[in-house]
């Protein structure tokens, strides 16, 4: 097994009730391996949301990805009752996403 954090780093931002997580491989040659891990169904299952709540956008020119998770923040930073209203911690949570070693 391999986890996303072995290959890539991440930072999470927010827009309303949507979490936006930037993921970039440490090494450009790992772009394909990261893409293989970051499928929307795998991300959705890992973050406890429905598959249709997740988009993964590859920014090929920059060698990075943006992961969009809708409805992830209990209403967003101004409404959330949770411990982390911005969802800042989701970046490191996502880095635990596991997959088969290619």
């Amino acid at each position: 097994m391999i986890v996303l954090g072995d290959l890539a780093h991440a930072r999470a931002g927010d827009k309303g009730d949507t979490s936006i997580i930037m993921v970039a491989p440490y090494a450009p040659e790992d772009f394909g391996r990261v893409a293989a891990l970051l499928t929307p169904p795998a991300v959705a299952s890992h973050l406890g949301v429905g598959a249709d709540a997740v988009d993964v956008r590859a920014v090929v020119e920059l060698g990075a990805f943006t992961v969009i998770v809708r409805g992830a923040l209990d209403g967003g930073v101004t409404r959330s009752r949770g411990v982390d209203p911005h969802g800042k911690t989701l970046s490191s949570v996502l880095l635990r996403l596991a997959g088969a070693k290619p």
Partner: protein
Amino acid sequence: MTTPYRVGAATGFAGDRFEPARVLAESGDIDALVYECLAERTIGLAQQRRGVPGAVGYDELFLHRLDDVLPVLRPETAVLTNAGAADPTALARAVAERLDGHPRARGRVVAAVTGDDILDRLPSDTPVLGTELTIGDFGDRVVSANAYIGAGAAVEALHAGADVVITGRMGDAALFAAPIAAHHGWDTEDADVMAVPTLVGHLLECGGQLTGGYFADGGRKVVPHLATLGFPIAEVDGDSTVTLGKVDDTGGLLTRATVIEQLLYEIDDPSAYKTPDVTLDLRSVRIEEIGPDRVRIVGERAAGKPDLLKASVGIRDGYLATGSIAYGGLGALARAELALAIVTERWEVVHGRDSAELRLDLLGYNALQPWARPDVEPAEVCARFALRTWEADAARALVREVEALYTNGPAGGGGVQTAVRETTGIVSVLVPRDLVQPRMEVLR
């Protein structure tokens, strides 16, 4: 060809550290020092404070920041900030007063930029983004409405001789773009020209997050000396070449990796990042490491500019009550779960309310990933309760229930913490540009 212009990010948010700005002013050889101090909610909160006697509509901490930096600030370095929040003119007056008495501020000219406040003219049928609602549906709960304005009025103020510019809800990137555009004589109406300074602003607007702050992971991502993190400087040439750096011998790290995190982490569509001055296509940006803690940025592209401006509308949103109690040692998780169950039962049986309105969390176990049930026995767990409500009595009832877990709940609970606060929510709308009339006023 105009000379290169150097902009320093003094703060990345209202509560940021003080001394990075001082280091930039003293050793950064900078032409402009920019304080980003305004979060989305700040204006709504400031508007609510305005009704309170003695309270002001701006960020008072900025005056202390100014006091702190003045002894080392070069007379020719411009200062810009959005700390004016709900009342830029009042902060500009307070700043002018402060500078009047200061030996190092002789000749400084202060200007205020206003016009972002559109509360009195926002049509009630304006749709709220991401909902089926209109602004009218919120009735008298609407407390503020501020459009994100572009760099234009701040550039005008600088051209009029101001070297301290106080704004409200100017777009974060625009606040940094303004002194760059003013120096090089760039036309803020021209989206293609504004691509470079706006991208610079986007990278600098979170301060130390560009130079290794919020990056270290204790293992693979190592950042030297975060305790003395140096904030970023952007040098922009007349031909639009951008070089990012920081003051030598400060802590932090500036690499392709730190820049790409900052570039993309809040962007839902990298092909169209909308700002008031330009829609940026970030996909073509190239990030080149040209030396230790020195990075060159090239290749940004404008994709026109938005027809409509985004505005943030502050909405009174009732009370948020939170309470927590900690359990440690043998059976900590089981006792914390028991505490959740006790309060849940009492919420229904004693208070006659629906317990589904409570948010229940187990800190130290799965509060950050509530969908997960890890098979571990944590050494300590904090049971946390939260309620959003319009009823002050219900908010108070919840925090009393948490306190009562001391003597009525599971064994060994400690460290109860509770809070009840009034909250202001933010919704977003899009408004026509002609609804918003930014203007500047030179005070002295």
